[in-house]
């Protein structure tokens, strides 16, 4: 990771020095944008209470427009956790506009698997301070990939279509050798491929109305996921997502209604795993199918006559996650999240959220009963 950060920093400085050596103004356009957050959280986990101010997160985004056809973009993530500065490369890719209908990207990019991770996850865009079940750490939804992608959009009469197809290193199957409690889980952020097979995925979006108020999307990602030259080399995965978006100002309601939803399914091929009981390795298997879902509704009274109410937003989200029965990470979890946001400007908000999570399973097993209250200041720069 440090090498990647150093490479990026060198790229920025060498570019600037090179530009300064030439007396002519540089034609390379460079921007640093990004977003961040600071928050307070109070958690009641099955009766055990804890609360904490959380140190901020910061995600700078670097944009280099090298010409009207060529651009480099990268996003870093910085977070102070457990006394250490954690850093990660969210994406770093080069894009080239081939024609009016097709752009090619290569590098590490956000995967267009549904819309949440690619479009909605940044803290200043996400209307709640948490992500839905199934996304993020130990999630079943891929967020980024290293590879190549083509994408574009076009109109057909009064409707629009957009598409993205990509090939990446693909997910990697955790066979449980080092982490028996995670046997059968897919890991998505792989800088190196664990086999010679490359994943193939894509998303097709359809906007039936020319006001772009409704979008329907279908995504898929297919890949072999097992390590080469192992008993898992022929295990494959098939991931599917359906997404829905509706946003429109509704005059009778005096404001903007925004609905987002996404269904994700993960189907991993049959495989045998091993667990230790009293010093003896026992073989077991399970039907490795997972699914998750979220639907979110928000309302902002933009037609109100007072600025205070104009800047308010009310949000509700339901979310669900089911992981395979018989696996070490078996779970059935439900989540309800409610929030009130106050927008300080178009890219900064104070969010107050209350989240109830219940169900069974997870790494610890047993009943899940969590109630989380958060206040988050989210800002874009």
């Amino acid at each position, binding site marked *: 990771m440090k090498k990647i950060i150093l490479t990026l920093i060198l790229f920025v400085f060498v570019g600037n020095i090179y530009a300064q050596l030439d007396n002519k103004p540089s034609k390379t*356009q*460079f*921007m640093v944008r990004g977003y961040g957050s600071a928050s307070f959280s109070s958690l009641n986990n099955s009766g055990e209470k804890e609360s904490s101010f959380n140190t901020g997160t910061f995600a700078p985004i670097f*944009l280099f*427009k090298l010409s*009207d056809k060529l*651009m480099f*973009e990268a996003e870093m993530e910085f977070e102070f956790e457990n006394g250490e500065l954690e850093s990660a490369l969210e994406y770093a890719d080069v*894009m080239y*506009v081939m024609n*009016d*209908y097709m*752009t090619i*990207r290569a590098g590490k990019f956000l995967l267009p698997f549904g819309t949440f991770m*690619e*479009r*909605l996850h940044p803290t*200043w*865009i996400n209307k709640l301070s948490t992500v839905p079940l199934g996304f993020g750490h130990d999630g079943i939804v891929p967020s980024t990939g290293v590879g190549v992608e083509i*994408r*574009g*959009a*076009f*109109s057909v*009469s*009064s*409707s*629009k279509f*957009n598409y*993205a197809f990509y090939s990446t290193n693909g997910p990697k199957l955790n066979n449980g050798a080092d982490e028996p409690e995670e046997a059968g889980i897919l890991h998505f952020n792989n800088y190196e491929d664990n086999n010679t097979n490359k994943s193939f995925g894509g998303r097709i*979006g359809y906007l039936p*109305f*020319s*006001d*772009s*108020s*409704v*979008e*329907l999307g279908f995504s898929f990602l297919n890949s072999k996921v097992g390590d080469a030259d192992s008993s898992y080399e022929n295990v494959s995965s098939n991931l599917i997502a*359906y997404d*829905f978006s*509706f*946003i*429109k100002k*509704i*005059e009778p309601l005096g404001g*903007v*209604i925004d*609905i987002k*939803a996404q*269904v994700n*399914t993960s189907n991993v091929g049959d495989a045998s795993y091993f667990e230790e009981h009293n010093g003896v390795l026992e073989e077991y298997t399970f039907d490795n199918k997972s*699914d998750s*879902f979220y*639907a979110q509704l928000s309302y902002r009274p933009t037609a109100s006559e007072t600025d205070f109410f104009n800047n308010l937003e009310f949000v509700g989200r*339901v979310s*669900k996650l089911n992981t395979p029965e018989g696996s070490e990470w078996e779970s059935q979890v439900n989540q309800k999240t409610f929030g009130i946001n106050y*927008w300080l400007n*178009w*890219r900064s908000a104070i969010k107050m959220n209350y989240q109830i999570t219940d169900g069974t399973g997870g790494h610890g097993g047993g009943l899940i009963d969590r109630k989380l209250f958060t206040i988050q200041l989210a800002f874009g720069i």
Partner: protein
Amino acid sequence: MKTIIKTTIVSLLMGLLVVSCSSNKEALVQVKKGVQAKSGVQLWGENCVRCHNIPSPAAFNDVDWSTIEMHMKVRANLTKVESEKIFEFIRSAN
């Protein structure tokens, strides 16, 4: 899983119902004509808000908008016509 699919279908139908209920005659004409008949300011209002709040044209200078134009055309899957009209409006209003 059935509950998930049912909820999605209900959400979808609800969205479509609201669209049809809230569309006035003028809006329907616009919908039929498509993107070509729309102005930059209309497309700006309709597309940015699909993901985030709408920025003011004064939020960035023209050079920065040119960089953002390329970034957002790809990220938000804007068509060429949409992108050109939206950012022409932004530059004219900046």
